[in-house]
């Protein structure tokens, strides 16, 4: 009982035990947005893809942008949590759980957007029955499903000790069914040396695996574009470029999540400025890499003076001028300035920068998808101007908002079930002698 009094879990008990009025209002608000998204989805299913802005020429739009974005955020979560775990980074403890949540939740939402792109959902199983190994789409299906399994196992391994802590924490005022779930999921983990050894071994292996899979899977996603003969896509650096962009966006999402949970659950004691600066520095390095890749890609295209590449670059600097500037200039330079110069390095500044980075990277994905499809190598016969000029409709925006709302909702619900900070690791930190026993 004395142990329980000193346990860090005591501080997380309120968030697990009860939900405030604001909490309920937040959940209702998110459900309302999701409900609106369901209405938009029904419209799309009953009236067909005509209700979207996608046409014969621009066959991909905001949905695929969201898919790339969420998958990127997911892989970033996996890379960050895997790397922090594998290298036993000292400051990882308060933020690693959030990175794991980001991984799984994004991974569950992202592929949903692919389904929204498909006109004949009833024939989706053909992909499994008749899918060919030569097709990058088949690689993507295999890779994403493999990744989902890997991330779930990794998350579960990372949760195991906290589940055991929650099971053993008797003062926690929770319904019986929830305690029972903790008991089942904890697998009888008691922290015996043999169990610790096995858990560490499995977690280390899975941490290495999720890093490798995240790189492979996001490269596969990039190859769907780069193996296609389209201006702007057919690039050899697309694989690493996508991976860098993914981790860049993931670091920004992690900063925003840290700021939100710090504010909402009053975790100022655990999530410190040094954590924001540490993730901010990761974001800075990735911003530099991202800027380097972007410049390298566009410079070679521009210098090559190939007709369609030139048309694409003209399109980016005219029709898509502001998105291009925000995506490739503001999104790159801002983290370098804010995190790079010590004077600007505050929690609020880093968080605002992270929000701008997220917007910039979403726009980056939009600029990869839409302008290219608007300037194809082979024009389609009898094509109409409205088929060339894509504009997302209210249905697409509604489903985009619904995806973001679902992400927030699942994150909120997950934080109600498991503390957003790894309490078992903090417990060890508090009593190092017990760990050595």
């Amino acid at each position: 009982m004395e142990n329980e009094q000193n346990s860090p879990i005591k501080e997380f008990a309120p968030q697990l035990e009860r939900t405030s009025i604001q909490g309920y209002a937040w959940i209702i608000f998110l459900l309302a947005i999701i409900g609106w998204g369901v209405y938009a989805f029904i419209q799309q299913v009953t009236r067909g893809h005509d209700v979207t802005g996608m046409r014969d020429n621009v066959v991909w739009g905001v949905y695929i942008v969201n898919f790339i974005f969420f998958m990127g955020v997911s892989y970033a979560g996996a890379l960050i949590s895997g790397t922090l775990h594998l290298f036993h980074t000292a400051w990882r403890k308060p933020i690693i759980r959030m990175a794991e949540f980001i991984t799984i939740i994004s991974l569950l939402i992202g592929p949903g957007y692919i389904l929204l792109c498909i006109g004949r959902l009833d024939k989706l199983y053909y992909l499994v029955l008749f899918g060919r190994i030569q097709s990058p789409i088949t690689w993507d299906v295999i890779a994403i499903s493999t990744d989902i399994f890997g991330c779930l196992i990794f998350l579960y391994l990372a949760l195991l000790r906290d589940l055991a802590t929650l099971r053993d924490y008797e003062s926690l005022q929770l319904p019986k069914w929830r305690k029972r779930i903790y008991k089942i999921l904890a697998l009888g983990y008691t922290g015996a040396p043999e169990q610790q050894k096995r858990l560490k071994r499995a977690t280390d292996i899975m941490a290495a695996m999720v890093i490798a899979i995240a790189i492979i899977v996001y490269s596969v996603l990039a190859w769907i574009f780069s193996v296609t003969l389209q201006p702007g896509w057919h690039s050899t650096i697309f694989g690493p470029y996508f991976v860098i962009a993914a981790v860049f966006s993931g670091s920004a999402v992690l900063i925003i999540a840290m700021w939100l949970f710090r504010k909402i659950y009053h975790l100022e004691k655990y999530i410190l400025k040094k954590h924001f600066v540490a993730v901010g520095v990761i974001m800075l390095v990735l911003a530099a890499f991202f800027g380097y890749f972007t410049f390298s890609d566009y410079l070679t295209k521009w210098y090559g003076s190939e007709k369609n590449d030139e048309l694409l670059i003209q399109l980016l600097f005219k029709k898509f001028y502001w998105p291009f500037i925000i995506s490739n200039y503001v999104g790159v330079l801002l983290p370098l300035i804010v995190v790079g110069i010590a004077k600007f390095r505050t929690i609020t500044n880093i968080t605002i920068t992270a929000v701008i980075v997220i917007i910039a990277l979403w726009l980056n994905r939009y600029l990869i998808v839409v302008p290219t499809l608007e300037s194809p190598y082979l024009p389609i016969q009898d094509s109409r101007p409205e088929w060339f000029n894509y504009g997302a409709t209210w249905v697409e925006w509604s489903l985009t908002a619904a995806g973001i709302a679902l992400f927030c909702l699942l994150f909120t619900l997950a934080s109600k079930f498991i503390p957003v900070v790894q309490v078992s690791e903090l417990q060890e930190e508090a009593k190092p002698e017990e760990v050595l026993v």
Partner: protein
Amino acid sequence: MRRSIKTYLVLLVGGISIFLPFPGQSQEKNDSSARLETKMTLNYLCTSNDTVVLTANLSIKKENDVFVLENATVVFLASAGTNSKTLGKVITNEEGTAILTIPLIDMPSDKDGVITYKTKFNESGKYTASEAFFTAKPAKIKLSFSIQDSLRYLKVDAFQKNSKSEEVALSKETVMLYVPRLFSLLKIGEIALDENGTGSLEFPNDIIGDTLGNLTILARIEENERYGFVQGQHIINWGVPKQYYKAEVPSRELWTPIAPLWMIITLVIMLAGVWAHYVYAVYELIMIKFHKKKDKSSF
């Protein structure tokens, strides 16, 4: 506390406002009582086997968008002066199209043999009535093929019908020649008809046909003020037989039956490597549980 209530109210109002209808939605409700205007178009095609194909398209305009009208009854008529004949009734398909194919027998025509075709949609429920007309004189194109001095020739004979339904030469018009391809028609030439309604063309010998070399030839008089759209059709074995590419080794193309060996090996190695690690991690989890049971039994 005050701040919390304020936040709560903002969220609540925001949540409720999501469900409020857009201004456009209520407008739609008010407009639903007004009749929607329909629009009809009629296309005419006279074929070489003395039949006419009439295609009517029915659409409605709603809030600056054009929608096709499905399951609507379209009446087809032929007339000349006061003489009128109902040709038939057809229900529009999901594309708003009603097609009627009818033989050129006992058609009412004027003294020059000109027939006026009419399609009509009667007003019903929330839609207004609409109609469309097309006036044309029946005509026909016949195709014949010959080989002279190892050169291939395509000959076209065009006819029109007079008021006594007798075939007479259709002269001084231009006939376009096409071969249908996968997405569109490939133009292979055009023939100017002489006074006898005849013309010929040396047939190109490099057009790819099907695997047997069969080609479908279309001869057309298009959008003519007097004859409308006239078409003759013939299939002949004058094309170059299509040779399907057969890869000697499995390649990256999606239509090859099997993927390249290096691709299969790479995929198998990667998947086996990854899933073996998953299995190992799950095995360790099982052993953690098993360890607990072992502990209990030792008590």
